[in-house]
């Protein structure tokens, strides 16, 4: 019996040692055998892929959030380029990362959010894009062509963008100043005729409290973070729950009168009700989180040329507009503006005015402080 256990232990060891050798999939080597898609720096920051514009070199595996791609666009791409596209879904940036880390998720193109692009770049998971075969890159609006998480768009191209703010029931709450007071101030939030919800996400939840306190949402100062956690804990008295996907539903069914959530999530559901004038999405004046979801190619993708062609296809002005008309999220594609439905482009909560845009901040990876964010937020939730 001892022998048998020993054998098991040895095999386990062998397995984990082989895991050590490759740093848990964190460092995939670029595969030079892929149709001559050699990756070499060309000095300007972008990479030569060896592909031509509109070239395809195999079928495409597209990893995306669910309900985040107009199926007609997929059909059009398949017809135009005579390849097949398989769309697969993940439920969070972290779940996607976990799959890739464990040894590649087999995707060619993925759509991670901003801070996740930064993490993925740090971990060499993404392929440097060949800008020469993405001519539609010129359609990208000026404010998105040099984002802090990926300066110069070396590894990613923006897909859709939005903000994190507060959805309110105007009929119940009345005219209010767009402020984080609605969630955290005992005199404002505590006096609302109903309860509120907060995003069930340590970074977003803490960012809201940090904005309210006047701090940087990317701070790693322990004192400031503890203050933010205390604000969330105090708000427990009028917080009904923490949710990342039901905030709009709760608002529309009357469980809450104000909720912390993503712009597209609120706006998409407001469009669907009979009394849209009763609801509003606010971007608080203290500042708010701006986020982008971005197309990127995995370093070990098997259809590198198809992947580039697909990204270029989505960045086409008319295709980009089709996407936004379907998702109700804002498009980073300046060329698309004229093709997007007017009710979307004229909505200040989807396309906020410049003075509001100046106060929008991207969330960044804070390194070891992420643990602090998680534990303080979890403790504050109770």
């Amino acid at each position, binding site marked *: 019996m001892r022998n048998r256990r020993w054998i*098991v232990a040895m095999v*386990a060891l062998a397995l984990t040692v082989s895991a050590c050798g490759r740093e848990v999939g964190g460092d995939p080597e670029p595969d030079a055998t892929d149709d001559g898609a050699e990756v070499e720096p060309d000095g300007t920051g972008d990479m030569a892929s060896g592909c031509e514009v509109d070239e395809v070199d195999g079928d495409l595996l597209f990893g995306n959030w669910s309900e985040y791609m107009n199926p007609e666009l997929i059909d059009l791409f398949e017809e135009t380029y005579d390849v097949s596209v398989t769309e697969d879904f993940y439920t969070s940036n972290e779940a996607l990362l976990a799959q890739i880390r464990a040894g590649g998720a087999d995707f060619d193109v993925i759509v991670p959010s901003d801070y996740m692009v930064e993490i993925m770049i740090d971990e060499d998971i993404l392929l440097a894009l060949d800008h020469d075969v993405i001519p539609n890159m010129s359609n990208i609006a000026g404010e998105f062509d040099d984002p802090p998480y990926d300066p110069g768009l070396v590894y990613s191209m923006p897909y859709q963008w939005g903000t994190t703010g507060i959805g309110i029931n105007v009929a119940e709450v009345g005219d209010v100043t767009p402020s984080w007071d609605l969630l955290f101030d005992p005199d404002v939030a505590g006096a609302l005729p109903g309860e509120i919800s907060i995003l069930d996400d340590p970074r977003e939840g803490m960012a809201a409290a940090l904005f309210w306190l006047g701090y940087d949402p990317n701070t790693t100062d322990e004192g400031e973070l503890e203050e933010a956690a205390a604000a969330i804990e105090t708000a427990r008295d009028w917080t*009904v729950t923490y*949710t990342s996907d039901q905030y709009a539903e709760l608002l529309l069914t009357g469980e809450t009168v104000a909720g912390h959530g993503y712009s597209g999530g609120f706006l998409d559901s407001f469009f669907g009700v009979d009394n849209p004038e009763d609801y509003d999405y606010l971007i608080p004046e203290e500042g708010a989180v701006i986020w982008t979801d971005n197309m990127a190619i995995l370093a070990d993708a098997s259809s590198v040329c198809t992947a580039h062609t697909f990204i270029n296809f989505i960045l086409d002005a008319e295709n980009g507009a089709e996407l936004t008309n379907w998702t109700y999220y804002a498009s980073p594609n300046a060329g698309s503006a004229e093709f997007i439905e007017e009710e979307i482009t004229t909505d200040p909560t989807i396309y906020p005015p410049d003075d509001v845009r100046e106060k929008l901040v991207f969330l960044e990876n804070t390194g070891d402080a992420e643990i602090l964010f*998680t*534990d303080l937020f979890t403790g504050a939730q109770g």
Partner: protein
Amino acid sequence: MATTLTPPDSDQTSVPPAKLPPGLETNAEKAESRRGFLIGLPAYAYLVLFFALPLAIVVVYSFATRSTTGLTVLADWNLQSYARLTDSLVVAITWRSLWIATLTTVVSLVVAYPFAYYIATRTPRVRAALLVLVMIPFWSNFLVRTFAWRLLLSSDGPVTRILETLGFANPRLLFTPSAVIIGLVYGYLPFMILPLYASLERMDHSLVEAARDLYATGWEAFRKVTWPLSKPGVIAGSILVFIPSFGAFVTPEVLGGTGTTMLGSYIGRQFVGTASDWPFGAALSVAILFVMMLAAMFYFRSGGKDL
């Protein structure tokens, strides 16, 4: 596995004693032992390959280090993740998970026992039909079922309305620990019903008749005969309900609100949250496994007998 479990033991079965001095084993007994081992072998081999080996990877991870981007670095082996297990946050969440899981188990047992007894005493044809009726709801989708409870428990939902007419002032159910327990009981009730049914159904009912004959009251007959005979089912059912409730992940997220964070969600946050602290998540999991094994062992060895 150093930890072992004694099955809810079967005094009435006449199996050969577990340990015979090697010299005294007869050839027939040896052959019988080998046969038993071989029957179990496919399952064991499967679990060693697809469970024990993967588990070994997790154990290794629990001693690893988290990089600043949240990557697990398999170097600088340390016990830091285990040191964090005594953090007040971890203790508080564990405590909450414990009492929610305990309440869920008790409520499930109280509801399921008479129910399983009722099914077990029907005619075979009715039995099969009732059993299938129990399972049917659970072939829809777990998430969708849980969301249906959300509608039922919501502030203008039917359950709240009923409570109001019963005179409760402004009852709030959704997003409270009660809602989490209702959801968990609902989710895991078949796990209690099935083993209870299995142990009650095979019971020799002439024994119960005899007991009724012997003892003054039906209650006493139940306590002295039915209950002890159904104990294996009670134990199996309690384990099947308690453990998934303790590690519950989706139900507390959907039906819970403030003050309902459970261990499952906290572990989830380590693996698929922004913390991305796999070593700590691994350490938490290993600790749960270890404690649960100890508890189950203790339960079987002593507590189980006094039930």
